[in-house]
């Protein structure tokens, strides 16, 4: 699914990702943990195609090099990033935006564009499945959403767009127990053998629900340790100091 080789990324002449290798196979869920400022969000941004980074190395996605491909095309090819800090966009109705977005993705896959009614049916279905109050979708995009609502909205978008490679950047941070279960449920119900995940988190508690296949520790722009769930458990006890 995704193969990252010797990835380096810098911005404003600051090196942030310093030679990173990860291979994620279809169906796998990889977790990335690591101290604040180690480069986790930067990695997520680089994978999603954000502008402004100076990048070297290889990012192969479904056999194609991604580096030259712009953000919107990556999204259309099935890459999805649930943001750590979703942007508030005043005046833009969430449902309208989502419909445009879904139709762009469908169109690029050669599928028919959906009319409003069909779209709303899908939204209703997916939000019920996640236990999300669909009322927030008639509001302006992320504007005045609580922290938890923003995160849930990201997962709802993920469910609606139905991508094949999903990056979650601290989607579990700042959530109450029920919201955490909502998110975990969103991830688990999307898992199948053709889809993969990269889940960035600081806490073992989300991983208890979603059962990662691999856990990596990112420190100072590099993967310094990889393992299974037991690594997350160990980190929870000892912190990052011992690992370096």
């Amino acid at each position: 699914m995704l193969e990252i080789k010797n990835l380096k990324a810098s911005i404003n002449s600051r090196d942030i990702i310093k030679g990173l290798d990860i291979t994620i196979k279809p169906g796998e869920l990889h977790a990335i943990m690591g101290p604040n400022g180690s480069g986790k969000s930067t990695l997520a941004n680089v994978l999603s195609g954000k502008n402004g980074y100076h990048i070297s190395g290889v990012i192969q996605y479904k056999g194609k090099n991604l580096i030259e491909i712009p953000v919107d095309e990556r999204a259309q090819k099935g890459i999805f990033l649930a943001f750590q800090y979703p942007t508030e966009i005043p005046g833009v109705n969430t449902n309208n935006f989502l419909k445009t977005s879904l139709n762009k993705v469908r169109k690029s896959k050669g599928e028919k564009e959906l009319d409003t009614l069909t779209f709303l049916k899908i939204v209703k279905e997916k939000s019920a499945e996640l236990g999300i109050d669909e009322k927030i979708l008639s509001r302006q995009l992320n504007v005045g959403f609580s922290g938890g609502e923003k995160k849930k909205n990201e997962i709802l978008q993920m469910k609606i767009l139905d991508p094949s490679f999903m990056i979650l950047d601290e989607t579990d941070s700042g959530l109450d127990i029920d919201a955490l279960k909502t998110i975990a449920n969103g991830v688990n119900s999307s898992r199948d053998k053709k889809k993969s995940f990269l889940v960035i988190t600081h806490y073992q508690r989300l991983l208890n629900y979603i059962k990662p296949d691999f856990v990596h520790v990112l420190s100072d722009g590099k993967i310094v340790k990889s393992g299974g769930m037991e690594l997350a458990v160990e980190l929870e006890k000892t912190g990052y100091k011992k690992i370096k």
Partner: protein
Amino acid sequence: MINNFKVNSNEIDKFKKISKQEKEFRIKNLNLFNKNGFPNNKSEDWKFSDLRDIVSKNFKKLDVQIINSKSKNTTLIKNFDHNFLVLINGNLSSSNFDFEEKNKIKIKNFYNDNFSDINKYNPLIHLNHALSDTGYSLEIADNYKFKKTLVIYNIFTKELNENILNSRNKIQIGKNSELHTIDLVVNESKNKFMNNVYENVILKENAIYKNICIQNEKSDGFFHKFSKNTLSSKSKYSSFIFPSGLKFNKLDLEFNLEGEGSECNLQAASLLNKNDHQEIKTRINHLVPNCKSYQIVKNVLNTESKGVYQGKIFVKDIAQKTDAYQLSKALLLNDNSEFNSKPELEIYADDVKCSHGSTSGSIDETSIYYLMSRGLNREESVRLLVSGFLNEIIEMIKSNSIKKFVQKKIEEQIHGN
């Protein structure tokens, strides 16, 4: 190109059957206009909009003759019950008040019986008062609330070619009465022309006036409108204006809050495209205590467009407990667009709440990234942000059907058709 536009005094002789008083009034105004011609940027009020330069660059001649165009069938807004006026090149050509009690409404062609009011500053008003012979006068009796909206179709016809139209309109709403209007510009013209309107709105005690003004058809029109609004006690004025698509547009709006507890709300949202030049100038005079004024003006500026907002709030010494608010926000899509904002507060009372703010900035790249990460391309993302920016104003419209109508118009404009 016109260098020094003056109006020949024999134009006044063409008005037959006017009183001596009216004739003098017209001549006086004609002389005032002719003294300096179109205003240029040396005049403080025209600092950002050098009309003399604009006229001389765009017109070879300017015909002051009144164009008598016959009305073709006007296409009315569908699925929306409404009263209407049809103005053709400023001339009242038909009216329909089928939803109302007719004895409560007086509608007349242009007339003027006020020959004392000589404006001190604005040459365009002088020009208007010298030459205007078209327009309408609408008077609503006391204690009458309109059942349906009044749509005013402002049609500009194909015959227009380097003409200047001068028209004068008056709306007077009686005590405890209420009127909602939509001003809609319908453009059939193909050539350059100027439209110079003088408008007078009078709200008696407790009257309510709500207006929505939609001018968004592309045209080679050069518009100027001066609007003088007088508010008696507890009267409420609200106007949403959505102007754009004109080569030149200046709205000069004056509000006199003369009665206690009166309130005026002004909301404007514009998308300016290449070579558009638009100025909104307001003057709110708080003349008595306990009045409120609220202004929000939003502009989106595309390549090589120019926007101006000059907003002045005047608070007289006795106008205690004034609550005045003014905000201008501009979104510049391109480096070579220009926006000027000049807020002015002149306050002589001490117990007042006045605030003003002005922001202008370019498109937010974080927002673009967010939208693009969901599959929209850059252009679509920008469009969405632009419509979101303007939507904040549209969302303030209370009536759902009108909100949808305006939204559709603005969307068409954003998509460039």
